[in-house]
């Protein structure tokens, strides 16, 4: 394969780093799983796309030897601020998952919370996985999770506004509503999402609205297996959730583990 220049990834309209933890505060199912995997690895761990440290900080607190990187410096700033408040000294770097070089090799490389779906091109998907593989010690594992493209979702009429979540702000108790408008290209396997987050204001005060957008490339089960193979992995498995159950339904979460021989 010819080395092709990377397509610029545009995160200029992505979730503002300061709002990220609030907006994704509902996502907790994966933290315990990734922390346990890191401890079980018994050696250095690398988290790809560590963002604000939603997974990395608890992993560090649990005593694992973890490095991380992210393409968005503002997210890393947020991570460092949070870590410093807890007296932690994280080793995190700004890097692109499609082409990175870290100074050491790892027993475990993780790409949590569907971050791999930000990579939109086949060549770049393979490059990302290959790069992860090169950073593994022999016998080391790559673990990543992706949502399965559920047909109930990808048939949603274009332009329809869907209330994704409503919950109480963990600090103030005031209502938070997340609404999204998503367009699906079912052949290119791309979704373009526009998200609006409404945070209710204090009594008599106006609320605030945060808007952001992103593009994700969804991946089918057999397709992911081919990507891993083309990146050099020969041994891999997939589960249908973080509890390890079998992948059966198209509403399951795909949790992949691939070993470096």
């Amino acid at each position: 394969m010819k080395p092709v220049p990377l397509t610029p990834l545009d995160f200029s309209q992505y979730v503002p780093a300061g709002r990220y933890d609030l907006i994704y505060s509902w996502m907790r199912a994966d933290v315990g799983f990734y922390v346990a995997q890191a401890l079980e690895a018994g050696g250095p761990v690398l988290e790809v796309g560590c963002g604000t440290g939603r997974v990395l900080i608890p992993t560090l607190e649990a005593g694992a030897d973890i490095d991380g990187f992210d393409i968005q410096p503002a997210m890393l700033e947020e991570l460092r601020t949070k870590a410093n408040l807890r007296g932690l000294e994280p080793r995190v770097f700004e890097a692109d998952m499609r082409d990175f070089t870290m100074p050491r090799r790892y027993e475990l490389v993780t790409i949590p919370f569907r971050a791999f779906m930000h990579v939109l091109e086949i060549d770049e998907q393979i490059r990302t996985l290959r790069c992860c593989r090169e950073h593994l010690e022999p016998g080391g594992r790559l673990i990543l999770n992706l949502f399965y493209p559920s047909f109930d979702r990808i048939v949603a009429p274009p332009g329809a506004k869907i209330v994704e979540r409503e919950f109480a702000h963990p600090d103030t108790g005031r209502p938070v509503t997340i609404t999204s408008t998503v367009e699906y290209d079912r052949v290119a396997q791309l979704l373009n999402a526009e998200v609006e987050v409404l945070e209710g204001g204090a009594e008599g005060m106006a609320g605030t609205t945060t808007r952001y957008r992103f593009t994700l490339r969804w991946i089918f089960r057999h397709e992911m297996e081919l990507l891993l193979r083309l990146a050099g992995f020969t041994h891999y498995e997939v589960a249908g959730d973080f509890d390890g159950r079998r992948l059966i339904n198209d509403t399951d979460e795909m949790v992949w583990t691939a070993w470096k021989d």
Partner: protein
Amino acid sequence: MDGVEGLSSPYDDPRLYDAVLEHLDFDVAWWLSEARAAKGPVLEAGCGTGRLLLRLLAAGIDIDGLDSSAAMLRRLLEKARERGLEPKVLEADMRDFRMPRKYAMAFIAFNGFGHCLAMSDQVRCLLCCREHLVPGGRFLLHMSYPGVGYWSQPGGVPVLEVERADPKSGHLMRMYDTRTMDRVGQLQHSHMEIQELDADGRVVRSSRFETEQRWVYRHELELLLRAAGFTRCEFFGGMEGEPLERDDQQMVVRASAD
């Protein structure tokens, strides 16, 4: 590739197969034009009873074929004799075959590739086709695109797929397909029934078959082609060479290796 619940495969009754499907010609012009453009010998893997192969041969294409069903090939040769044609066909598995020559073009038409159920079958089949190409040769494949319309059909219900008069007997032929689908496995199990009705509309014969199909997506097919050593591929959304943009189109790919 045989019936999995003890029923026979539809390829065990080639006359009946032809009574229902031989008339299909929506793809003939496309394959003829691709075969002519190849300017050299052509191979059809999964040629069946020769619906396409015999039409291409009659049009002057230097075409060989292979199929894993001896019964289908016997039927092909019978039809060829009636038409004064002398095709070279071989009983072989599309995942593992060796032909005596190499081709400017190899192709698998009309969902034939769906018979490769496991990824290892798919890759071996594509690899074998690639190895039978002359340098610069091209490989083409046509599959229906497994769109949401397809996956959203109710499973387990008989659907009338084909209804037409058998040109020989004049009897009405009806083909029903009862499908169960596995969205994650991308598999379809078909329980088919072909009914023959007399002039009074009575079912005089009913034959049941079953078969399995594995569907592939666009990006997945590109990855399969890469895994088999192809370096270039171009996708189309149908037999007019139109772009593949929607999931209710057909999927045709033309691939080559450097």
